[in-house]
């Protein structure tokens, strides 16, 4: 059976959904962050697949940028988590409700 672009996209979709579910379900801020990373990567996979469809490298360049941004984002996010942890002694997002209206 021949593998189609669609297969890759479905896999990307599944990974994205899994990451999303994790973001919604998990309470540990670090794990949520990891799930976010997974979602980003799912998008990356789709981008690479599209780049193949278009026979163009631009998609891959974009993935490159995405990875860079993800790295920066992870660093900042982790720093925030550390700062929050210092304040509240927890990484449980349920207890981070300072923004409550």
């Amino acid at each position: 059976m021949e593998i189609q672009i669609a297969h890759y996209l479905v896999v990307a979709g599944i990974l994205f959904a899994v990451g999303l579910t994790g973001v919604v379900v998990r309470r540990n801020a670090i794990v949520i962050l990891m799930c976010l990373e997974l979602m980003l990567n799912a998008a990356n996979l789709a981008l690479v697949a599209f780049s193949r469809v278009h026979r163009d490298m631009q998609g891959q360049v974009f993935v490159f940028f995405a990875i860079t941004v993800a790295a920066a984002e992870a660093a900042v996010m982790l720093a925030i988590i550390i700062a929050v942890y210092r304040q509240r002694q927890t990484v449980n997002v349920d207890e981070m409700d300072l923004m409550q209206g």
Partner: protein
Amino acid sequence: MLEANTVATLAYIILFAPFAAAALITVATLRSKALSAFLSVGSVILGGVLSIILLADQISRGAGAEPVVHQFTWALSRGMAFHIGVQVDFISVLMSTVVGVVGSCIFVYALGYMHGDEGWSRFFAKFAFFAFSMLGITFSTNFLQIFIFWELVGVSSYLLIGYFYQKPSAAEAGKKAFMTNRIGDFGMTIGILLLFFAVRDVFGEIDSLSFETLKGIFTNDGAREQLFAAMGWKAALGAFLIFVGAMGKSAQFPLHVWLPDAMEGPTPVSALMHAATMVAAGVYMIVRTYWLFAWAHDALVAVAYIGGFTALLAASIAIVQNDIKKILAYSTLSQLGYMVMACGLVGAGAGMFHLATHAFFKALLFLGAGSVIHACHSNDIWDMGGLGKKMKQTTWTFWAGTLALAGIFPLAGFWSKDEILAVSHHATALYIVGVGVAFMTAFYMGRACFTVFHGTYRGHGHPHESPRVMWIPLAVLAVVSIFGGFVGAPSSLNPFGEHGLQSFLLVAYLKDGVVHWPVGHGHVEAGLHLDVATVGTLMALGGLLLAWLFYGKGVLSAERVKQRLKPLHTLLVNKYYIDDFYLWLVRRVQQGFAIAANWLEQKIIIGVLVNGIAAGTKDAAARLRKTASGQIHSYVTIVLAGVTILVFWFVIFMVSE
């Protein structure tokens, strides 16, 4: 004969002299009592003198002379102009003479009566203002003007009744008078609107408020038929509504309740306004606009019966009153009912005649009562008695007034009452009412006189005759009351010609003096009607005799009659419970509506709607606030749900493409 311009100028002077006096007193001379009194009294005496000159001029012009009309535009809208001015003809001059002469007497009397009152200047300013308003009605050229001064009379009445403003009963009485008049004016306004636009609808943009214009239409058979065909039943309604205004001012049932209460004002006020002039305004207006009533038959019938009913009602209440001013007040009501009844029976001339004579002797009676009250410091006739010896001038003048009112030959009341009974002769029911009222009038007046002036003094202190400034006006009025009626006598000596005053009055309101009425033909010869006169005089004498038997000689006991007719007595003392009914209407029904409206406003409109919207916004905000839990999960989930919906919308859109 005077020039038309001179006549108009004189009328303006008569009209505005009291106004100028009132304004001057208010603005400048409040502090100077003498000056205030001089201005006020002088302006009215001037009016009286000029009125007599105008009256002489009218006589020289002869019956049926064209009126002198002068007016200027008061307000102007496209296609509609409102005018104000003076209309001088026999009726208006007669009325202004009555106002001027009676007014002069009363103003002079007030100089004595109000002596030492702290509000002296204020009183004379208001008094002069009243004279102005009344004269404004008198000289009105159109419905709008008469309505304007109509209202002004209402105000001055309010101010003067409530003169002793610190007395709650006086303040209430003023309010009551004003409001009752307002209800009458409510009808009058609608009547004027109805008539004004109905005439315009048929005849286009003419000045259809003007009396002369309307008179021209109503006395022209073709035009009138055309108008009535267009108006249908509204013609009678319009006339009746205008009459409702007269009901307010002339205190006809059911709007009569204010007049007895109006006695709260100082006695000169009662004499001038609530006996002689203001209450006559309603009758005057009916006469003034008689071309309308004469042809609106259904309205005329209502006028006649309302007048007759009021006469009977008031006379019966007067019998049981103990307050001397209240007796006279109910007597006034009753006499007004007479006049209105006469107008309703196509006897506008008779009504007007009675108005004039009644003004004199009723003013006389009130001033006499004032003199008595001044002496005894009480209003109750049972606190008086035997005053005949102590107050000679007051007594003989009061008796003159009483006999005139009772209609004893040859006093003034006899002549005018005779006219009224003559016109009612062909309407049997009302004729009986008229005769009965004549009897009752004589009886209650006799009762008052015998109780007050004869027997022994039952009050406190030592009553003595009033000062000259008070009794001289009484004497003047008494003389007019005794001899004034001869203007109605058919005699070649009469200044009004062989047929007396009536010949002037009849042609003044109708071209040929003949109108047709469903109950009978309304053409009444001016002069003396022997059959009616005999019956009327006998009734009056009978009434006086009965009063003498009860209260003079004392052979009959009023107490026993009272005991025997207990329920009737209670009913009369309580004035048929009409006042109580109105009180209930105002306190419970009207206030109930007001409270209901306020409840609706405060609880529903403001409470539910306005504050509800505000509270709803706040509540929604409070709820929405909770969704901002500060938790990442909820935010993510909401975003996710939104994205999902968008994606689905997109998918469905795409697939359907």
